[in-house]
């Protein structure tokens, strides 16, 4: 076994290992596709149900002010945004990687995709908080107008909670997500750099 031809012979003459049979591959492929569709449909149903539920509360409750309704819309938007960010939907939209390109091109696609993901997550959280804060400020205004002391308390509590989430939870979440994505990008880049050696 002192030359490469022997090694190649060894490789090519190794006994075949039983791989899954062709039917089970086709079955798995179909199942895979069905699962993807079901997942997307479920996500859309959950989204729709949430929107309807909040809109229903907004319509049924006897709100006089426009600000309250605009506030509800803002809160709905922020909740939808959070759901999209947390679900696989965003990943599916962003990840258009074509796996039939060369390895080098594929790795570049993966890096681009992870960069996009990082951007959307970081900016997405900021937009979420902005919409949520604005929504609550508008929503609570009617309570404040009707009953100053109750409204004030509601304002203070809500804004305190949002401030806590913004200054404590948000940086922590971003840091965690960034670390995960940065580690991945670093690994992909280190493989990609092997082509240049």
């Amino acid at each position, binding site marked *: *076994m002192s030359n490469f031809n022997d090694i190649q012979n060894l490789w*090519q003459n190794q006994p075949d290992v039983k791989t899954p049979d062709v039917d089970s591959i086709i079955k798995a492929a179909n199942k895979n596709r069905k699962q993807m569709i079901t997942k997307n449909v479920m996500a859309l149903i959950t989204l729709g149900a949430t929107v309807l539920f909040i809109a229903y509360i907004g319509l049924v409750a006897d709100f006089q002010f426009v600000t309250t309704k605009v506030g509800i819309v803002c809160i709905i938007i922020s909740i939808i945004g959070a759901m999209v960010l947390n679900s696989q939907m965003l990943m599916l939209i962003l990840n258009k990687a074509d796996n039939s390109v060369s390895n080098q091109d594929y790795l570049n696609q993966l890096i681009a995709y992870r960069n996009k993901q990082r951007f959307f997550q970081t900016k997405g959280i900021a937009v979420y908080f902005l919409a949520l804060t604005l929504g609550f400020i508008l929503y609570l205004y009617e309570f404040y107008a009707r009953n100053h002391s109750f409204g004030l308390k509601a304002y203070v509590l809500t804004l305190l909670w949002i401030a806590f989430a913004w200054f404590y939870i948000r940086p922590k979440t971003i840091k965690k997500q960034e670390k995960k994505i940065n580690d991945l990008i670093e690994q992909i880049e280190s493989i990609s750099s092997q082509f240049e050696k």
Partner: protein
Amino acid sequence: MQFEEIYQTFSPKVYRLCMGYVNNSDWAKDLVQETFISVWQNLSKFRNESSINTWIFRIATNNCLRQLEREKRFEKTVMPVQVEEKIEIKRDDRIDFLYRCISELEETERIIISLVLEDLPQAEIADIVGMSDGNVRVKIHRIKEKLTEKFKSYEQLQ
């Protein structure tokens, strides 16, 4: 070419390639399955722009490269699977050693050498990995040397 025919022709090759990459039989079988699911779903998009060989090996190797995103998930199940495997089939020690040697190489080297061992022409390997012909030639030469050296020292120990 029908899917079934493609699968019969290429699944052993893809298995060996994946095995060279991950050196774990169960994981390699998973990768074969994933590769051919992708082949099945995209077969209508394949338009003979490249050879079917290149096309399938590109999907398979890209699939291997993507494993870095999942390695952590798999680690948990690796141990029992390997133990089971050893009881089930007694593979040639030299083959085990070969897979071990390959899995110790860098990721791109693992892919390149597996394609060389499958007897793919250099130009096609260059096309699959996305390197120039010249660079691939140099790389292949270096990896072959590395592997042969390892085998020499292995045999001296036997």
